[in-house]
């Protein structure tokens, strides 16, 4: 009986389909409009230096003074992530100048954002780095 319960619990947990979390946009923000995040790779993704630009606004008004960390993960386990702090170069535009793809293939760019009022926000972008 315990085993049957365990199997049933597993099936409920899995819900027969994978959790769709690859393109995430999550976080906790206080009341009001949710900020809009747009991630771009300057010049498109390529092996080596590829600065990442993060556009951050709420209702088309630039959000200034946020803390933005850009992280690149490969789809394969075990490779070191690339983590760079982005600096605000213009109001609402944050740039991780030293961000660098270390390998060709599929990557996930994730931005962890802390807004000036303390709310947090995460956005991801799947990217293929050509050979």
């Amino acid at each position: 009986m315990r085993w049957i319960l365990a199997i049933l619990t597993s099936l409920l947990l899995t819900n027969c389909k994978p959790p769709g979390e690859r393109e995430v946009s999550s976080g906790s923000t206080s009341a009001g409009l949710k900020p809009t995040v747009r991630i771009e790779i300057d010049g498109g993704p390529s092996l080596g230096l590829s600065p990442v630009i993060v556009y951050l606004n709420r209702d088309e008004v630039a959000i200034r003074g946020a803390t933005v960390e850009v992280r690149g993960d490969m789809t394969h386990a075990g490779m070191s992530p690339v983590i760079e702090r982005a600096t605000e170069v213009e109001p609402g535009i944050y740039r991780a100048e030293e961000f660098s793809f270390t390998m060709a293939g599929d990557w996930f760019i994730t931005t962890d954002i802390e807004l000036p009022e303390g709310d947090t926000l995460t956005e991801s972008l799947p990217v293929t780095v050509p050979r």
Partner: protein
Amino acid sequence: MNAQPKRPTLRPITEQPIGFDLFRLPGLRRLLRWKYARVTLQLPLLILAVFVIVDGFTGRQLAPRNVATTSVWLHYRGLVVIALALFGNAFCAACPLMLTRGMSRWLEKHLPQKYAWPKALKNKYLIVALLGFYFFSYEYFDLWASPWLTAWLAVGYFAGALAVDTFFPSGTFCRYVCLLGNFNFAFASASPTQITALDHHVCRSCTHKPCLHGRYSSTHKPESLPLRTNGSKEVAFIPTSEIVRPGGTGYFPGCETDLFVPAIQSNMDCTLCFNCLRACPYDNVALTLRTPGWEWMKSPWLKRGRLAVMIMGVLLTFWGILNAAAMIGPFFGIAQRIAAGLHTESEALVLGLIFVAVAGIGLGITLAAASLADFIGGAQVRPWRAFQRWGYVVIALGFGFWGAHFLFHFLTGAVSVVPVFQHFFELRGLGVDPNWQLARLVPTRWLFPITAGITAVYGLLAFTLSVRIALRDFGQRGVVAMWPMLLFVLAFLVFALLILAQPMEMRGTILGPSF
């Protein structure tokens, strides 16, 4: 019970390695003869399996941040080859899948009978087919990138072990179905340890062969006895008073994969469960240190498993090459050229063709080199016989390459186990801040020298093995007969080093991204 230990040894039942008995290490024999020793070994991997399943199903679906993908594709595989190279089949010894036995025994009670495993499947051909399907699925479904699928794989393994060993005799799953186990069996041939008999005279005069069939021991004989390990009839009752170092009372199962200790010449099918050690009433079982690859010179698979085992080993070697090559640039070029040539965008078709082609090429060139060597040596040309003579050379190369490949990933990300587990607890509300900078075990610039070094060491073993097999079987003509295999080894090494020297790229981009 007419056997007495420590009598003068006559001619051994079969030639076994002579070396230091690891059970002589203080406390080890006593620990492993303890009835619950195996459960103790299995618990850590069972706990890990729970983490894999929970995080795979409910954690973040990003491979580098999930326990399922990280521990399975990075740590487990790396530690498996390290254990095989330095010790033996430790991961079968600690396999948590066998903890389903309690459940399968309960389920058995509801069955009218145990079924015999079909005779047609009592070989490794089913394993060969399953291995091909598994390696194909690994590439096609990007298992390495999916925590969810990896968790399902773990659940599937538990369910498979439970189902097979419920309907069929214990050990059927390990011997005829388990892919992980058979990978370990094939490459444990390279390991520096082996189960042996301390004194063959004791085994020769042993009536009940408990290491094979099991035994029941207590002070008084019960009214009914459990069945032998293979289910054929009741086990022998041996009173506790007649047992050297009893280690408890009750039923002590014998070898579930039908290995008779004094006849063992190979680690093939040995799960290092130590049932034999616990079942032997004379404490006559040793875990003997031997030269790595000792058995390759003894052609043991001719007596056990025969052609199917060698085909499995050779295909493991060539699919191992493919498994690594699928991470480098030239592979993508070839795949895309095949797709363009066939005017197809079906990744399944392209991958399927590549797998079949690699299997055909691998078996073909091994057969060709082996047959040529036999021909030059003056033997009657029987390609499959030649294949079984020289195939061990390919197994040595295969282990070296799998070892190099898995070690590459392990060294690249071994320490990521720390932030990945920190992340597991962070996601579930514990105030832990993962340190994602932890990943590498060694600097990147060391990776190629290490992996190339491992490949070269096993290449040297394969080289030596070719020379020794040639001189053993062909005498003076062996000096010439060895050359086809020596050239094979050389070509394999060049190809392997070329693959290892390429910059690694991520899978899943053959005909488009993996997401």
